[in-house]
């Protein structure tokens, strides 16, 4: 029943989408300054029906309707209600439906929020956006249908991978998708702007709020994903330069570049073509990311289910999208003709773009090179964290430096600003204090610490100055401060992390450095969908004689049958204590891994600050209008 309803609703969505395409195309030729009322009506029904499809799938999950293959493969009656719902988008078909819903939502919001814009500009945007929507709907209906039937109807489902049954991972995909798919709207806007020859100022003003919104969600999505990886995957890190993580980071670099360039376009009416290129690239990179994740050509912690035919569809779609964008770009792109001097804000923003594109290129090469090498020569190599750290870390120095100085410069032209100021003096002193308390570290690490300290102090000074003059751009200050804090905390985290793994039985005691770890007890218990072995540990810090109790677990889930190792984390303000245990087969010995992870809270908080900057930029923009 639900299957038929879901499919019908999706087909109606597709019909509505094609109708909007048809109506918009004919409305282009009509006189009158407003978009036809009919299009608004169709757009309204389009969002209602698309949303209905999504609700149908959620209902199917909630009532465990196993006549749908998708529900059967990814759900189970004993699963808690919350994860039944979040399981809807925890798989390829469901997440594709979510993706389409966001595409439609953005299309609708664009239409109703831009009442006063040039008519043809709006219609072209609508046409491009609805072309995207229909392509993905066709993909959904022909290749990845979440409503496909299964007969005979099984009595029980296969369950959701337990590591995905987690609150952070329930909200991670929606956040990331709003970022990813949000970029579709400025892809459409950019192409429409080219064709309808919209001027720079209105392009900038139209694009800016969407860029801020998608950038903020992308940042938050990455943050939540990192936090999840930190406590769920049990290795104590938060970023592994895993291909799937990289797929979410690559569009982020482009969005960041765009977020900065749009400022130039708005204030100085320059960089028109460049902003268009960035807008097109961002959504392209989002689709590339999806292709990489969904086609399964990457070996990663996140590859749960994949299938080459999906990859083929996304790849052809991608090729079509890229080629038509290139064609439209070269056919319609105007000449830029704006001037500025070397030490102007424009130049620094271009430098930001230079670094973002460079970072993007490195991550792209690192992610794809092994795939190409394997396909072309059959040689398999791995590219891991050492590669990215080695290549990217040195470039953080100039980036941090430019982030410190750039915002102080004025538009068009300004004199070179002296760097020997009180902020530098203070940061050098702070740095010396830090330096003296660090035992051993590389020169690069120390320099990164120095430059991030400089960025942090300079940003605080900027804040104070601007606050005095009541001319405050809080979004920039908070985001840059957050970035400085992020690099600063990551560096200290790297330097001060402690790790120790050892084997132990119940009752054993292990001493090392300043810590004593006691393995006190072991308990087994069973819950609804898993059995668990829980270890009771006491960790004594001999330096300040504090002790804490940690209880890592080994869980054996029954549906599907999977063993997970649950880390036990005790979070204090400055430092986390992280403990995992695993059994060594055919023995009563356990392998215990103890980690001290300093500044984790600071890392999370910094990323949160960065995204708050995005929200503020969005609000500031709204106020201006």
């Amino acid at each position: 029943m639900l299957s038929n309803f879901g499919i019908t609703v999706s087909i109606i969505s597709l019909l509505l989408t094609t109708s909007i395409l048809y109506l918009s195309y004919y409305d282009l030729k009509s006189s009158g300054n407003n978009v036809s009322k009919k299009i608004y009506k169709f757009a309204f029904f389009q969002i209602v029906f698309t949303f209905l499809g999504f609700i149908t799938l959620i209902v199917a999950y909630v009532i465990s309707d196993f006549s749908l293959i998708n529900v059967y493969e990814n759900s189970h009656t004993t699963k808690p209600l919350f994860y039944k719902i979040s399981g809807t988008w925890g798989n390829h078909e469901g997440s594709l439906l979510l993706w389409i819903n966001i595409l439609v939502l953005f299309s609708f919001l664009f239409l109703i929020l831009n009442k006063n814009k040039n008519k043809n500009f709006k219609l072209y945007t609508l046409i491009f956006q609805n072309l995207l929507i229909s392509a993905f709907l066709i993909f959904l209906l022909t290749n990845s249908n979440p409503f496909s039937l299964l007969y005979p109807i099984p009595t029980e489902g296969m369950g959701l991978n337990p590591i995905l049954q987690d609150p952070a991972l329930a909200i991670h995909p929606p956040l990331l998708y709003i970022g990813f798919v949000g970029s579709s709207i400025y892809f459409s806007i950019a192409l429409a702007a080219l064709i309808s020859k919209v001027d720079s100022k209105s392009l900038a003003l139209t694009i800016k709020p969407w860029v801020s919104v998608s950038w903020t969600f992308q940042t938050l999505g990455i943050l939540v994903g990192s936090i999840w990886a930190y406590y769920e995957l049990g290795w104590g890190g938060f970023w592994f330069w895993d291909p799937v993580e990289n797929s979410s980071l690559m569009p982020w670099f482009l969005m960041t570049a765009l977020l900065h360039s749009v400022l130039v376009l708005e204030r100085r009416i320059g960089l028109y073509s460049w902003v268009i290129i960035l807008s097109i690239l961002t959504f392209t990179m989002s689709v590339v990311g999806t292709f990489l994740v969904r086609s399964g050509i990457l070996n990663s912690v996140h590859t749960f289910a994949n299938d080459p035919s999906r990859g083929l569809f996304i790849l052809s779609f991608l090729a079509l999208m890229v080629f038509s964008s290139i064609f439209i770009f070269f056919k319609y792109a105007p000449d830029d003709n704006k001037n500025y001097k070397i030490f102007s804000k424009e130049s620094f923003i271009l430098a930001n773009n230079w670094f973002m594109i460079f970072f993007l290129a490195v991550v792209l090469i690192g992610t794809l090179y092994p795939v190409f090498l394997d396909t072309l020569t059959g040689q398999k190599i791995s590219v891991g964290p050492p590669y990215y750290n080695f290549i990217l870390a040195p470039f953080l120095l100039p980036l941090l430096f430019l982030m410190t100085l750039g915002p102080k410069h004025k538009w068009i032209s300004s004199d070179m600003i002296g760097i020997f100021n009180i902020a530098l003096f203070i940061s050098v002193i702070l740095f010396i204090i830090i330096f003296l308390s660090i035992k051993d570290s590389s020169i690069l690490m120390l320099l990164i610490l120095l430059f991030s300290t400089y960025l942090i102090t300079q940003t605080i000074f900027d804040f104070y100055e601007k606050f005095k003059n009541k001319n405050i751009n809080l979004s920039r200050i908070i985001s840059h401060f957050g970035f400085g804090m992020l690099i600063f905390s990551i560096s200290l985290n790297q330097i001060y992390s402690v790790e120790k793994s050892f084997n132990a039985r119940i009752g054993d005691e292990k001493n090392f450095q300043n810590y004593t770890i006691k393995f006190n007890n072991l308990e087994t218990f069973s819950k609804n969908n898993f059995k668990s072995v829980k270890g009771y540990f006491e960790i004594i810090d001999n330096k300040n004689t504090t002790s804490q109790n940690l209880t890592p677990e080994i869980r054996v889930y029954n549906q599907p049958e999977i063993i997970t190792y649950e880390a036990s984390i005790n979070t204090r303000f400055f430092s986390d204590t992280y403990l995992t245990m695993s059994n060594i087969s055919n023995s009563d010995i356990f392998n215990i891994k103890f980690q001290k992870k300093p500044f984790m809270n600071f890392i999370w908080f910094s990323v949160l600050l960065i995204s708050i900057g995005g929200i503020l930029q969005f609000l500031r923009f709204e106020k201006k209008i």
Partner: protein
Amino acid sequence: MKILSLTIVLFFSSVISYCDENKTYEILKNLRCLVCQGQTISDSNSDFALTIKEVVNEKVEEGFSKKEIYHFLSDKYGDWILFNTPLKKNSYILWFVPYVLFILGGALLYLVIRKRTEKTK
């Protein structure tokens, strides 16, 4: 005197074993667990990972250098096991292209800014 020398010996031997341990960690962190999905040997609890941990421990104790151990493992399992991609003929592009791109990008940026600066004059 005997006690003093004994303490010194004990002290240094503990320092040495401590360094050994760090070296082992560093190596294990740079190895891919071949039977897992994108995990390092150090983070994995699989039987394969346990075996490799044993092997690396033994090699470190026998006094092999990091390089020799990486070499030994990649001979046996291929470069796929190494997360720190070795610089070889097949990875020149991977290691050098980023720098080339950075320089090209910088040059392009310089040209654009110079062109526009001239116009303002």
